[in-house]
Structures are given as structure tokens and as C-alpha cells.
């Protein structure tokens, strides 16, 4: 029998003043939040810093969280906003820097497991995801990787359910186009 404390229970503990209970939240969600940031930055150090900021922001604002709602959605929204802010700040940087970042993307992606059966396929999927606008990319991750419902995704992104469905569809189209272009390029 495995006991898994519910998010509401843990947050109630935090709200009662037990800050250490927040550790359960960090341990539970560190991986998806870190990966969200990694997909945004393509740099492990930056991803770790941003993910850390996301958890700290969640902790600071935890009183605003309504018990009974899905905590993961709330946390992901915070992380997503941080990721968007980060992207905006990056846009202001010089073209030279952008080129550097492009190179870094390729280099850093090699950190993905080389043990997977289709290593090159995995890399190309990762590349295709990385080049998507953040809202399309994360909708795909939330839907297919995190297995969230369209209703949850819609609430999280503050859009309608049909809008969420459309983003999923368009995201897949964009990915397919990118993969096709890179295939033709090769």
C-alpha cells in the first residue's frame, strides 16, 4: 500500500505554517516544471533557475490558491507565465545572441538520452517541439505528455475549450510541417 499525500492536504499544511511540507510539492512536480523550462530555454542551468523561481513564486502566492482546485494546473500556469516572460526578455537580445542560442539548442539537445531506440527521431521531435511558439508547444505537452483534459488545459491557459482544441491541432500541423521541411532539407 503506497500513501500519496494529496496536493490539498500538503497545501493545507503549508497554510497552517509548516513550510517544510512544501518539499512534497517540489519533489512531486520538479520534473515537469524543470522540463517546461528546459523546453523554453534549451539550457539546463537556466531551466533550473527558472523552475526554482516558479516554485518560489508559487510558495509566495500559495494563499491565493483555492483548495479543491487542481494545484498542478495553478503551478503550471505560474511556470508558463515565467517562461513567457523569459522568452520576451530574450526577444530583446541581439541577433548574434539568437544565433548563439540556436547553436546551443542543437548542442544541448544531445543531452537527451542516447539509449532510446530511435535517438535521431527523438531529437528531431524535440527540435520540432522547441521551435513551436510556447503556447502551441505546451498545449501539446499538457495534452499528450501530462495527459490533461481539454477542459483543464483551457482553464489553465484562460482560453475556451474549442480554442484549446484548435491549438492542439495547429500545434501538430506546425510540427508536421517543420519535420517535413527538415526532411526535405536533408
Amino acid at each position, binding site marked *: *500500500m*503506497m*500513501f*500519496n*499525500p494529496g496536493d*490539498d*492536504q*500538503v497545501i*493545507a499544511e*503549508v*497554510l*497552517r*505554517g*509548516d*513550510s*517544510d*511540507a*512544501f*518539499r*512534497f510539492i*517540489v*519533489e512531486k512536480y*520538479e*520534473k*515537469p516544471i*524543470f*522540463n517546461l523550462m*528546459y523546453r523554453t530555454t534549451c539550457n*539546463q542551468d537556466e531551466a*533550473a533557475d527558472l*523552475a*526554482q523561481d516558479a*516554485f*518560489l513564486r508559487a*510558495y509566495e502566492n*500559495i*494563499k491565493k490558491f483555492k*483548495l479543491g482546485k487542481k494545484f498542478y494546473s495553478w503551478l503550471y500556469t505560474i511556470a508558463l507565465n515565467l517562461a513567457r516572460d523569459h522568452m520576451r526578455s530574450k526577444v530583446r537580445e541581439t541577433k548574434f545572441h539568437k544565433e548563439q542560442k540556436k547553436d546551443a539548442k542543437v548542442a544541448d539537445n544531445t*543531452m*537527451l*538520452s542516447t539509449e*532510446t531506440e530511435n535517438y535521431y*527521431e*527523438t531529437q*528531431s*521531435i*524535440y527540435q*520540432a*517541439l522547441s521551435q513551436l511558439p510556447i503556447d502551441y508547444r505546451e498545449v*501539446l*505537452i499538457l495534452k*499528450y*505528455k501530462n495527459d490533461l483534459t481539454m477542459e483543464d488545459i483551457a482553464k489553465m491557459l484562460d482560453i475556451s475549450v474549442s480554442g484549446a482544441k484548435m491549438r492542439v491541432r495547429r500545434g*501538430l500541423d506546425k*510540427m*508536421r*510541417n517543420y*519535420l*517535413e521541411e527538415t*526532411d526535405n532539407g536533408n
Partner: protein
Amino acid sequence: MEIKKNPKNNRNDHKNHESLKHAIETLPELNPPANFVHNVMSQVHPHNVTIFDRLKHSYSRQVTISFVPLKWIPALTCAFLLFILLYQNPDQRPVQPIINEQAELSYIMGRSELAKNDPQKALPYLKAAIYQDRTQADYHFWLGVAYWATGNYQLEKESYAAALQLNPNFLPAHVYMGHSYMEKKQWSDAISHYKKVLSQVPDHAESLFNSGIVYRKLGMRVEENAAWTQYLAHTHTGPQSIDAVNYLNSNGVFSVQTAYIGGQKRVLKSVEYKGNSIEPLPESLPSLVQAGKIIKDKPNLLLHIIVYENNDKDLARKRAQYLKKYMLEIYPDIETNSIRTSWFDTPRTMQFNRKQYSLDSSVQVFAEKIVKS
């Protein structure tokens, strides 16, 4: 990735999307850095919670009550018997520790996974146990051990610290905290934990040995020698005891020495004398008894006793003869020619770490196989 585009063919589009969905589902994820949780938690500071908030959240807390009749029958029987017992002896009411059964179960599962050498599986159980009952130092300690086994050294230390916060005298946590600091070469921190252990259990072998190492690293020779001596007073066998003797000898202390007897390097207390006495000090005798027993059990061995006495050959000879006589008296089964004595009026020289030591008075003992011609 082979994905063919045909805008006029929706079925093909759908097929392409399905393969993309599958690719996203199975996309590998990176693990965050090992110290990620620590870094976040080190910046999390307790909120100022008002009494109103505290009460509000306490009373709005979700409570689950489960009732399993079969589980309660033995408990009710025990309670009834206990009631009868207490009714008869009201002054002898035992104080029972409160055990959180769910936490204990998670803890046992975690320990069991650790015993199966699967610390990765043990981690969630031990974390769950702590969540269910944070008051048990054992739970934190074993979580620390699981973190150590998975290479998460920062969280390992934090877990031991949590155990020690709950119970400052929880010795296993002190021992492992000491080991953890030692691995990081934080000698002073390590020694403070070993000291705590030794203040409660003066013959704790691991703490004594590691204290010796730490003092050596810190260049504290007196404390180092005391640690080795204390360690060897309780432990005479195993490779660490040989190391302890070598460390002690390399510091110029020869109250113990190693000797090859019966194909093994053994630790023997040095044979020592008071003044010009021929009889050794009583505390030296157990070493002779130990060596004699091995020779008795392995008759194919020849025991050599070599006595050095600088500038006094006669005293050296008398001492050697006395030692042989003494051993033959204790073990009459040993043949006379199984013990060979030699004596020298020169000092015995020994070398450790390129440093040469000269002992004016010393007894060397070793054994070799008898070669039959």
C-alpha cells in the same frame, strides 16, 4: 522522422498526427539537477500565519475515518483485557507509545526495499512515512540512507539533520552524518558527530576508526594516537585493525605491532618489560597466548621469537628463553623445535613512510611454514 504530407488526404493527416502524438507521449524527459529540491527549500521561509488562518485551515482540514470491523475485533479484545488489567492495578498503568500504523507500514515497506538493495523504490515509501508521521527520527534517518544510496548527498545530510532535530541523541544519524562530512573532507564537522557517538558508546568501532583518520588529516597526533589505541583495545581483527596499527607505528608508537602468523597478518600487543626484568608485563601475555594457540593448532608452523636489547646480549638471551619456556608451559602439546628463539644486542629498526625508527628494546614474533627437506 518519416511523415508524408498530403493536404488533400485527411486520413493521412490523421495518421501523421497519431504518430506525432505517440512521439510526444514517449518523449524522454530530463531529470532536474540533484540539488534542485534543496535549492528551492533553502529559500522557502515560513509564512507568518495568523492564529485565525491556523484555526481556519485546521477546521477546514479534510478528515477521513475508516472502519474495518475485522481489524477492530483483536483491538477491542486487547482494549478490554487492558481495561480489566488496569482496573486491578490502577497505579501501574503502562505508557504506550502512539504508533501511526499507516506511517509505520510505509516505513517498513521503505526499509524492505532498502534491504532488497533498491533505494530508488524505497524513497517514496520513506517520504510517505515521514509525511504521515514527522516525529520519528528513524524515518528521517533511513530516508537519509536511501538518499545516500541514490547519490543525493545534500538531501542525505538534510534527512540526518532532521532526525537529529527530533532526537539529538539519535546515534545512527550522528555516525552517518560523520561519514557524510568525511566524504566531503569536512573534517571538523565530521569529528563533532563522531565525538557525540563516542560520548555515548566509547567503543563504537566505526567512530573510533574514522576519528583516527580525521585527527590524522587535521594533524592532531595526540588525539589520533588515542583514537587508534582505543580502537585497537576493542578490535584486533580485520584490515582496518592492521591499518590502525600501521598508522600508530608510523607515528612512532609501538605498543602494538603486526606479525605474520599462520599466513595472516595479525595484530599483537607488543611484549614489554619493566626495567631489566626478564618477565614481561602481565598485559603483554595475551599476545603470547594468542600466538601460542595458533602454533598449537597448526603444527606445520615454526614460531620465531626475536628479542632485541641494545648493548645487553645477556638480557636479550634470558628474555628470549623465558618467552619460549612460558609458551611451552601454557601449551605442552607444542613441540620444543616449533619455537625458535634469537637475540641481539642491537636496536631493532623499523621503517614507516620513509621514516626510520630505532627501538632499543623490542620483541619480534612471526611464524613461517616448516619446510621439510
